[in-house]
């Protein structure tokens, strides 16, 4: 087994008594913990009969974060269907726009959480939401950096511009402060004035800085910025920049700004003086801001491969000797080193929810940036993370529907996971069962369809809803169950003498063919209808065919023959001689069977008497009918 990356966190279970041994069982997204009977040395008190559910991921139960899952699901499904045959430049633009979509969704969620955190009166809620906001901030920061470095993959020159945008986006308080300063009566006297100017310069927003201060205008206005779309090559830009940089240094050496300390500071910043930059730590507030600013004013043509060198040194310079880099810092550092796997790994450990790593890895995989990194159990990294995320979603009472799409796009194990999980969705209403069935139908999961239909049909049968049960067995094409239902109907008929649910039996339609017993039921009902309409000839034919074509179950033959009695006793001859012969044959077959079985099973003498009487009556009627039929058929019409 591999070694542990970080020390595992300890969670206390408050309701469990001290000293008791706990047992546990893994679930897909949580752990069930219970107290065992094993008594430790200082165990006290009686056992507790509760089961505790320990959940790691609370985020999916947060109402505002749920929107994140739903909206990102939409983006995810859209990403999977991007056509492979597009030229790579178009694809890159599409991937970048998808990445921006994800980020805007994160931001929208963050803003809403922030609003609630600020406006709520309960302290616990405010802290919880505040924590979620800071996590989302970090996630968006990392995602944005990954977009700049990996997906957009800007080359030297534009790289710095993108990094500048990245830093500016995540340090929005400068604009607020600037607004405050400008709205005051005399901006130049405001105590934050120089902070604002310096902040603008640190962010490379020289236009804004210029508008704040005119004197340093010329230097600021002449700083060259790389224009990716223009026809200036990197070397030309480099030359221009060096000229400007030399000019700045000359200004410093000439002491042109000696009179104004602030302007001198700004000039030193423009010259890229590290010590001056480090003096403004509060304005920079983060080491990556320091990194970008330093690069802007000393190495604007930095290449992507050189970034990590500067990143490491900036981190070390920025942090005090006492403070330790936080997990976020390590993740960003790994990103600057272009070590995607390390980024993903660190994020997986730091966050309690697989959402971020799953979606980011999927996007990077589509950009073909992940080497096929086979894990021990055969699937690749993208699939592993997606499966983990989707399995977590499946435990949620409502978000399980999203998980289905994620499983669909995991080619190796997705189908198996889905098969195992879909059967465990609780089915309270028929509507939910129909939705689950539709999911199974669309993916040709016929086993699951059969099993779900059987569950629903059994429930319907238990509640005496024979029509519902039949419609479920038709859906599953389950002949065995249809037979069961028909047996129920026939039993009802035998006990009560009439059919229940005539609306169903009369309107079976082609469903009748699903099972033999069902066909028999339909045809038997038809016989009754024909008899009721006094169409005796057709009724007789039908009755006979039911027995001779062996559609009727043997156990029902007695009933059928008894039904034939009134037809035999009519004044008019209904059964022809041949038909009567067939009836007699059936009767003989039946009695011989009964005699054979009668030896085994004990019957009361009353039952036996009834049976014998019935048989005798039948024999008599058949004989009489045969006589009349022979006479009728033998008579020559005059």
């Amino acid at each position, binding site marked *: 087994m591999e070694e542990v990356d970080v020390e595992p966190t300890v969670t206390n279970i408050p309701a469990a008594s001290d000293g008791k041994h706990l047992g546990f069982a893994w679930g897909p997204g949580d752990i069930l913990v219970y107290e065992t009977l094993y008594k430790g040395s200082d165990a006290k008190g009686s056992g507790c009969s509760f089961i505790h559910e320990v959940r790691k991921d609370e985020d999916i139960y947060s109402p505002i974060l749920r929107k994140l899952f739903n909206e990102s*699901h939409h983006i995810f499904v859209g990403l999977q269907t991007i056509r492979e045959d597009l030229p790579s430049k178009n694809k890159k633009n599409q991937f970048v726009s998808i990445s921006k979509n994800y980020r805007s969704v994160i931001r929208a969620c963050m803003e809403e959480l922030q609003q609630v955190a600020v406006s709520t009166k309960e302290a616990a809620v405010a802290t919880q939401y505040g924590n979620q906001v800071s996590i989302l901030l970090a996630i968006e920061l990392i995602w944005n950096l990954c977009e700049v470095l990996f997906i957009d993959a800007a080359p030297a020159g534009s790289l710095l511009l993108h990094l500048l945008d990245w830093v500016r986006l995540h340090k929005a308080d400068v604009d607020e402060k600037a607004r405050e300063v400008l709205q005051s009566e005399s901006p130049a006297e405001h105590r934050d004035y120089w902070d604002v100017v310096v902040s603008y310069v640190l962010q490379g927003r020289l236009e804004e800085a210029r508008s704040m201060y005119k004197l340093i205008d010329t230097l600021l206005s002449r700083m060259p910025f790389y224009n990716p779309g223009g026809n200036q090559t990197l070397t030309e830009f480099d030359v221009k920049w060096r000229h400007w940089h030399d000019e700045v240094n000359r200004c410093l050496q000439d002491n042109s700004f000696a009179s104004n300390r602030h302007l001198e500071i700004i000039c030193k910043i423009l010259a890229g003086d590290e010590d001056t930059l480090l003096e403004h730590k509060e304005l920079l507030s983060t080491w990556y801001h320091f990194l970008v600013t330093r690069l802007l004013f000393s190495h604007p043509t930095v290449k992507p491969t050189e970034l990590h060198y500067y990143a490491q040194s900036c981190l070390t310079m920025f942090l005090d000797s006492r403070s330790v880099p936080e997990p976020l810092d390590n993740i960003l550092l790994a990103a600057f080193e272009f070590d995607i796997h390390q980024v993903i790994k660190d994020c997986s450990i730091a966050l309690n929810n697989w959402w971020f790593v799953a979606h980011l890895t999927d996007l990077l995989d589509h950009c073909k940036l992940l080497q096929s990194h086979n894990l021990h159990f055969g699937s690749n990294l993208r699939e592993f993370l997606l499966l983990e995320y989707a399995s977590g979603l499946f435990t949620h*009472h409502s978000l399980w529907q999203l998980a289905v799409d994620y499983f669909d796009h995991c080619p190796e194990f997705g189908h198996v996971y889905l098969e195992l999980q879909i059967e465990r969705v609780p089915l*309270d209403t028929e*509507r*939910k069962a*129909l939705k689950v069935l539709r999911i199974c139908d669309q993916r040709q999961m016929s086993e699951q369809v059969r099993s779900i239909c059987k569950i629903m049909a059994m429930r319907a049968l238990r509640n005496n809803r024979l*029509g*519902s049960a039949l419609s479920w067995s038709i859906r599953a094409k389950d002949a065995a169950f249809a037979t069961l239902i028909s047996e129920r109907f026939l039993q009802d008929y035998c006990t009560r003498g009439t059919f229940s649910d005539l609306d169903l039996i009369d*309107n079976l339609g*082609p469903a009748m063919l699903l099972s033999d017993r069902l066909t028999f039921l339909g045809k038997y009902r038809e016989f009754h209808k024909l008899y009721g309409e006094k169409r005796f000839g057709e009724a007789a034919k039908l009755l006979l065919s039911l027995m001779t074509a062996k559609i009727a179950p043997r156990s029902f033959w007695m009933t059928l023959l008894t039904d034939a009695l009134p037809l035999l006793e009519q004044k008019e001859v209904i059964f022809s001689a041949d038909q009567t012969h067939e009836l007699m044959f059936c009767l003989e077959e039946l009695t011989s069977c009964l005699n054979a079985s009668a030896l085994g099973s004990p019957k009361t003498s009353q039952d036996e008497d009834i049976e014998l009487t019935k048989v005798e009556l039948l024999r008599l009627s058949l004989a009489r009918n045969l006589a009349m039929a022979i006479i009728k058929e033998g008579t020559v019409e005059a």
Partner: protein
Amino acid sequence: MENINAKYVSQKISKTRWRLVSHASLQQPDVFATGSWDNEVNKISFWSIGNHGSSDMDDGFEGDPQLLCEHKHDGDVLDLQFLDQDRIVTTSSTGAVTIFRLHQNSQTISVAQRWPRAHGFPCENAPCTGVVCSSPEIVTVGEDGKIIVFRADQEGVIRVIENADSSTIHAVTYLRTTEILTVNSIGQLKLWDFRQQSNAPSQILSLSGDRVPLHCVDRHPNQQHIVATGGQDGMLCVWDVRQGSTPFSLMEAHSAEMWEVRFHPTNPDHLFTCSEDGSLLHWETSTSSDMPSFLQGGRNNSMISRSAMAPAGGNQSLINAWLSGDSSKGRLETTHMLPSQTLSVNSLDVLGQCLVCGTDGEAIFVNRQVPV
């Protein structure tokens, strides 16, 4: 499609309904109610789109639905309907029927009346699947195959038709003031006349082929004998209940269950359907003296079949455009109203020029400029 706004609401929506507006005023609807399902705590909510007669609505964000108020609901909301301006009736998966009252001044909701076990099996709950009301009468149907009639201000039940159906009744609608129409899961439409005392339907209609379960039904607003249904296979059927027992026309509409079908209440040449496959279709037919429309009794496989001729103005045919004519040229146009790849659209409602629908992707879509 440019006028459609999506709002994510953190709950799967099972039903949406516009609040009724008085016919006299030409106001567009501004408030709608939604019910959720499959949540640990389900809710009914009222939303406002702030449509107070202003005509220029080019700013999409202005139309974002705002939550007015919400209330806990026991069990999934399986159906929901406005009883009058302030009250809605909901049916639940626990078999309960509840009337909620919206208090406009304080923007709160309270439970006005409740029948907790209206529908049920002897040993477990039976979800109550559909409701229709014409104040003060309320008719509900459920998985137990019962039809129950209530009155809004009376405690008990007015009438129960036990064992009205041996299978689940999925939806119910009024045909006339004393007649209702139900659809069930063995593909039958049954007409019930409340003036008769017997517990048997006065008429049964069904498709001659497979017994496909029917999930939704709606009656033509002006012509009471024309009814549209949607079923498990996504087929849209239009029936004439006076004639015969088979549908007049069958159209392939969706590739999965159709959950809701609605005629436009004031412009019935327009029909809307929504389905499990995530699409919402707007069907438009046009009346003209050429007796347009689709093939008689057969299946129309093409979704869009528009005649090249412009409709001749002037005399309106008496035969309704939804029923078949002899012309072989179709004059039926269908448009998708949602961006693709949403999860199932469970419900829709249309009033005036406004359309609202709710999906399993926990989103509500509102379109304020439906071309009708």
